[in-house]
C-alpha cells in the first residue's frame, strides 16, 4: 500500500477501534443481560443500542473535574496514556495479508511494549489521584501487570520459535499448515489468562475491585477522563483478542469468505468468550491472583517453552 492509503487505513482503524469499543460497552451489557436472565439496556434505539450515544453524551457533558488534592498534570495524562498505547498496538495487527498499517519485523515485541506501557496509565492514575483507594488500585495493577507481563511474553516465544519471526504477517502465514492453538495450546491458555490480567478485565479486575476499593485506580475520575479509562479497557480487550486470533487462530486465514471477514468473525467470537468469562467467573483474591501467576502460569510457560524448543530443534534437525 502507498503511504497515503496507509494513512487513510490507519485513520479508519483508529476510528473503527474507538467506535467498536464504544459499541462494545452496549454489546457487553446486553450479552451479560442475556446470561443473567435479564435484558440489559433496551430502552433507547433498536435493542437499546442508543444507550451508547446516551452514555457518550452524558460523559461528554459531565463536569470535567480535577480533585484539588490531585497531581493535576499526571492526573490528566494518565487516562490519555492508556488510550494512546492501546491504539498504537493496533498498528501491527494484520487484518488480512494486505490490510495492515505497518508490518514491523518486531511486530510482536512492539505489541508487548505497547501493552506494557498501559500499566503506567493505571499506576499513574492511581498515584496522581492522591486517594487511598486509588493508590491501592494502582499498586495492585502495577504488581499484577508486571507479574503477568513476564509469562505473557514468554508464552508467545513458542509461537515465535515455530515461526522464526516476530512479524505478525509471518506468524499468520506460518499457520497455513495448522493453527498454533493446537501446537501451542499451553501457550494459548497462558496467553488468554495473561491477556485478561493485562487488560484488567473481570475476573482479574483487582485494580478496580469495586467491592473493596470503591472504584480502585479511577475512583477520583469522572466525565471524559473516566471515559478514556473505559475506552482503554475495551481497546485493550479488542487488542488482546486480535492478538490471540493473529497468533493462535490463524489470523485472517479461512475458506470462502474474504480474509477480513474471517478475522472479524474470529475476533468477535473471542470477545464473546471474554464477556462470558466475566459473566461466569468470580474475582479471585489478590494473593490468589499472584500465586496463580507465579506458581502455575510461569512453570507452565517454561514447560511450554522447553517442549516447543525441543520439538522445534528435533524437527529442524530432521
Amino acid at each position, binding site marked *: 500500500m502507498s503511504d497515503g492509503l496507509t494513512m487513510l487505513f490507519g485513520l479508519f482503524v483508529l476510528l473503527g477501534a474507538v467506535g467498536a469499543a464504544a459499541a462494545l460497552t452496549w454489546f457487553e451489557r446486553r450479552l451479560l*443481560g*442475556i*446470561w*443473567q*436472565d*435479564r*435484558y440489559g439496556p433496551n430502552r433507547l434505539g433498536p435493542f437499546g443500542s442508543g444507550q451508547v450515544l446516551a452514555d457518550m453524551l452524558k460523559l461528554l457533558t459531565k463536569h470535567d473535574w480535577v480533585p484539588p488534592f490531585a497531581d493535576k498534570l499526571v492526573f490528566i495524562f494518565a487516562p490519555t496514556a492508556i488510550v494512546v498505547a492501546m491504539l498504537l498496538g493496533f498498528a501491527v495487527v494484520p487484518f488480512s495479508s494486505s490490510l495492515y498499517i505497518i508490518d514491523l519485523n518486531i511486530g510482536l515485541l512492539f505489541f508487548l511494549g505497547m501493552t506494557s506501557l498501559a500499566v503506567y496509565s493505571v499506576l499513574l492514575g492511581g498515584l496522581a489521584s492522591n486517594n487511598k483507594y486509588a493508590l491501592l488500585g494502582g499498586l495492585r495493577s502495577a504488581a499484577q501487570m508486571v507479574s503477568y507481563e513476564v509469562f505473557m511474553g514468554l508464552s508467545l516465544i513458542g509461537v515465535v520459535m515455530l515461526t522464526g519471526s516476530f512479524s505478525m504477517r509471518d506468524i499468520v502465514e506460518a499457520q497455513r499448515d495448522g493453527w498454533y492453538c493446537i501446537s501451542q495450546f499451553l501457550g494459548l491458555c497462558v496467553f488468554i489468562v495473561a491477556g485478561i490480567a493485562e487488560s484488567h478485565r473481570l475476573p482479574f479486575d483487582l485494580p478496580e475491585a469495586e467491592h473493596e476499593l470503591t472504584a480502585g485506580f479511577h475512583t477520583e475520575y469522572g466525565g471524559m477522563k473516566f471515559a478514556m479509562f473505559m475506552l482503554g479497557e475495551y481497546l485493550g480487550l479488542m487488542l488482546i483478542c486480535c492478538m490471540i486470533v493473529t497468533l493462535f487462530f490463524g489470523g485472517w486465514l479461512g475458506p470462502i469468505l474474504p480474509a477480513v471477514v474471517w478475522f472479524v468473525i474470529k475476533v468477535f467470537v473471542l470477545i464473546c468468550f471474554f464477556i*462470558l*468469562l466475566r*459473566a*461466569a*467467573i468470580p474475582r479471585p483474591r489478590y494473593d490468589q491472583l499472584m500465586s496463580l501467576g507465579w506458581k502455575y502460569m510461569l512453570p507452565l510457560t517454561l514447560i511450554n517453552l522447553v517442549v516447543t524448543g525441543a520439538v522445534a530443534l528435533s524437527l529442524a534437525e530432521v
Partner: protein
Amino acid sequence: MFEAVFSQFRSIWRILGHSFSRAETVQYPEQKPYLAPRYRGRIVLTLDPDGEERCVACNLCAVACPVDCIALQQGVREDGRWYPEFFRINFSRCIMCGMCEEACPTYAIQLTPDFEMCEYQRQSMVYEKEHLQIAGTGKYPDYNFYRVSGLKIAGKDKGEALNEASPIDIRSLMP
C-alpha cells in the same frame, strides 16, 4: 486443583446455557408486577367498622419506626376517644419496612401495595393526617379497638366491652 479448574469450566458452561433461558425482567412501567395485598408500600390510616378513626395516638408506630419518620400528638375527643391531633409521616425518610404496621395495636396504620409515589419536591413527600387517612377499614374489616378496650367512650360504658362484666357495685355486700 483439577476440581477447581473444572468447576470454573462448569460454571462457564452453565452460564452459557442461560443464553437460551427467558429473561425474568418485568418491563415496568408497561407491565405492572403483581403486588400482594400484604405488599409494603404507601402507608395509610384506616377507619374502624363504625367509620370512626382507628388511630388512638398510642405512639407505638413512631417508636417502632427505625428511621423515626413518624411524628404525632395525642389528643382526647369529647367522647373520650384518644386520637392524633396531627399525624405526620415523612415518606422521604420512610423505608417501607412495615414495623409501624406490626406495632399498631388497633390496625389503624397499614401499608398498601402502592409504591408509585415519586415527587419532584421532597417537601411533597411529607404526608399529614389528611393525606394518610382513607375512608375504609383496609385489610382488617372487623376489628374495632374500643370494643375490646376497657376505656369508656360515648356509647360504650364501663363493662360493655368484649368479655367484660358489668361494673361492680362496691357498696354491695354480696360475695
